[in-house]
């Protein structure tokens, strides 16, 4: 499967913060769906499309992202040529003190050095499972300057919503962010395709104006001067914009259709391997409608929940509608409902935590409750 394109994933998004979950890490590195990080989905989409050269622009808090990506071997991106490049801010003696580090210098070199015809740029807050080959071909055939994937979610799943106004030929004629009155229900999926040369021109143009902000939205804002075409994505697509959408996206995986389309449609989702032992179920557990990962020990009651790797749920504990991340320890008699527990939390015996669907309780990484 040959595709004349390289990939670029933007690990952060200025407008998207997930409170306690994004406090220790970049958006792209937030754990998702039991054994993944958010970035795994887009990275796998690119790899499954035959893309062998992927850059990841990280602006801040990228330690956990670096730990996760490593050499890229889990995605088969530890290549002699190309492969995975992490592009952190380029800090030199001139911008050391300033807050707006030069994000683009490093990326410009990356685009100059790798001679693919097209670049697929993606935000990391969208989750879907598909190859991109067809969209790159359609971009090529359309002759557009930039193509943008969208779906018809409108203002659903909250801000930031980039709404596209399009003419009959599919050209973007209007771009609105979080509009009061949306011109259509076409909402950008945060994935754009353009030629590498055009991208270099645009980046140079930005840099010459002292504008170091690089985002999918800043490209779309050029709809007056460039021909931007929309391509509809019709499959299941989850957006993570804030804690409630993180929660609802996770819970939607418990529905069979979403689960099937994201995990069992034939395209694997790669992630870093942890070598945990199989999950062990004790004699007294009650589990229903839940995802459980390797390395867990389940002795309590679990319902409608997502449980990551290495979690212990002790006897007489009851966990419902919750997301429990890696290596959390839930003691005896604990009751959790609508709770998100970040990695390594310990919940002491008898504690009760109850959140609401739209306002789940979020406990930060490593907390002892």
């Amino acid at each position, binding site marked *: 499967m040959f595709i004349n394109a390289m990939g670029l994933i933007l690990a952060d998004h200025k407008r998207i913060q997930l409170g306690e979950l994004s406090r220790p890490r970049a958006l792209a590195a937030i754990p998702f769906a039991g054994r993944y990080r958010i970035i795994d989905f887009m990275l796998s989409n690119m790899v499954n499309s035959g893309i062998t050269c992927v850059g990841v622009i990280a602006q801040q808090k990228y330690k956990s992202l670096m730990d996760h990506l490593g050499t890229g071997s889990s995605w088969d991106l530890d290549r002699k040529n190309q492969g995975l490049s992490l592009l952190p801010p380029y800090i030199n003696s001139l911008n050391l003190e300033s807050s707006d580090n030069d994000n683009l210098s490093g990326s410009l070199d990356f685009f100059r050095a790798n001679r693919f015809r097209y670049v697929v740029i993606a935000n990391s807050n969208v989750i879907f499972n598909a190859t991109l080959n067809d969209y790159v071909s359609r971009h090529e055939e359309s002759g557009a300057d930039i193509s943008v994937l969208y779906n018809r979610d409108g203002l659903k799943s909250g801000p930031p919503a980039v709404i596209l106004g399009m003419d009959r030929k599919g050209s973007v004629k209007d771009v609105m962010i979080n509009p009061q009155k949306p011109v259509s229900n076409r909402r950008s999926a945060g994935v754009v395709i353009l030629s590498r040369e055009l991208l270099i021109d645009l980046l140079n143009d930005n840099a010459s104006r002292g504008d170091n902000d690089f985002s999918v939205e800043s490209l779309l804002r050029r709809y007056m001067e460039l021909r931007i075409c929309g391509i509809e994505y019709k499959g299941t697509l989850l957006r993570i914009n804030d804690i409630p959408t993180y929660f609802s996206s996770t819970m939607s995986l418990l529905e069979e259709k979403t689960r099937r389309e994201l995990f069992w449609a034939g395209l694997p989702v790669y992630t870093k391997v942890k070598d945990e032992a199989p999950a062990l179920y004790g004699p007294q557990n009650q589990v229903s409608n839940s995802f459980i990962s390797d390395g867990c020990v389940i002795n309590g009651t679990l319902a409608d929940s997502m449980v*990551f790797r290495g979690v212990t749920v002790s006897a007489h504990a009851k966990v419902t509608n919750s997301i429990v991340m890696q290596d959390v320890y839930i003691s005896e008699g604990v009751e959790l409902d609508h709770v998100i527990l970040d990695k390594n939390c310990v919940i002491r015996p008898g504690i009760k935590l109850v959140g609401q669907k739209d306002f789940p309780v979020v406990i930060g990484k490593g907390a002892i409750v």
Partner: protein
Amino acid sequence: MTNKKKIIAMLLAGGQGSRLGVLTKTRAKPAVPYGGKYKIIDFPLSNCTNSGIDTVGVLTQYQPLELNSYISTGAPWDLDSNTGGVFILPPYLKAERGEWYSGTANAIYQNSFFIDKFDPDYVLVLSGDHIYKMDYNAMLKFHIKTEASATIAVIEVPIEDASRFGIMNTDKQSRIVDFEEKPAKPRSNLASMGVYIFNWPVLRAELSCDEEDPNSDHDFGKNIIPKMLSADMRLMAYRFTGYWKDVGTIGSLWEANMDLLDRPEEINLRDRNWRIYSRNPIKPAHYIADNARVVNSALTDGCNVCGHVEHSMLFNSVTVEKGAVVRDSILMPGVRVEAGARLNKCIVSFGTIIGKHVRAGADVEGECRYSNTRLCQDGITVFERGLKIRDGAVVPGNCMVEFLEPDEIVEAHFRV
């Protein structure tokens, strides 16, 4: 010499394991799946890497393809290294002649040139037949401290079982005075674990000498060790305590899997200081549906359970449909148990589909064409990989079900 190693490991992985029947039809015994996500060979390989041994030769002979692709570069065990790593060593043609490995000692002898490349002081000889966690480095320290020519790891076994093993008789300083292979009347209960450390120059000389002997079986237990003892060399017994299990028969394979459910603390696969590594499948977390019930069982990524699973070991991507009941069973990757089927004490190999309302295993009386009490006892029934078992079929216990031709039990066979 730039690439000198203090110690390298040689892992004997050519055994057929014929008592495992259809499970070793297309794979060598060390490639037999175990414990939900492992193969037997993951244990010695992980022990090596955890013990700081970075060079491992894996000697293959019988059905090596699955093992070859499984081990590949050795990356899952951190054995993809520039100066060492894992090497698959099949028998090969030499200038004048070529031959198969005719015994465990001959297999090492034929790879003397490989070992010499690393100029090791010591060679660790392992077999790929056992489930255990062991620090070979501690054993090496013992070997060096006691100035032995060879050290053999031993474990205490119940005296009534001792006649099934190679038994070491030792003096008070743990020096081996006598070795008996499967003695009728054992005088001690220290069984050889098939783990040896040799001083390489000593072993090299012994192997050459053994090669000249036309009456030798070229076997460590039968020939090399007794010969070294009779030459009054210093052979030490290194006592190992901990979980150790031979998984050479259907019964012991089943038991070893059930041990993980009944006594998980004994081998403790959750010890993060001594992880057992394996090649992990690329599958999502497993899913337990509403009304499913999973008790006393171990599950792995990619499983999808809508039925009832009790005291069973499920490898990755196993599906148990609604109304199906799985008890005391081992279901290997990709197995599907369809609605209403009932399995009891079954070992089901890769990708086999158990049709709707099949009844199979220990609680089904009677006999059928697949009955095989020589290999299957205690009601355990084994299914070969890639079978489709006909809806409503009845399969009694103690069966070894394989594809012969479509019949009232086996509907079809497909490649997995």
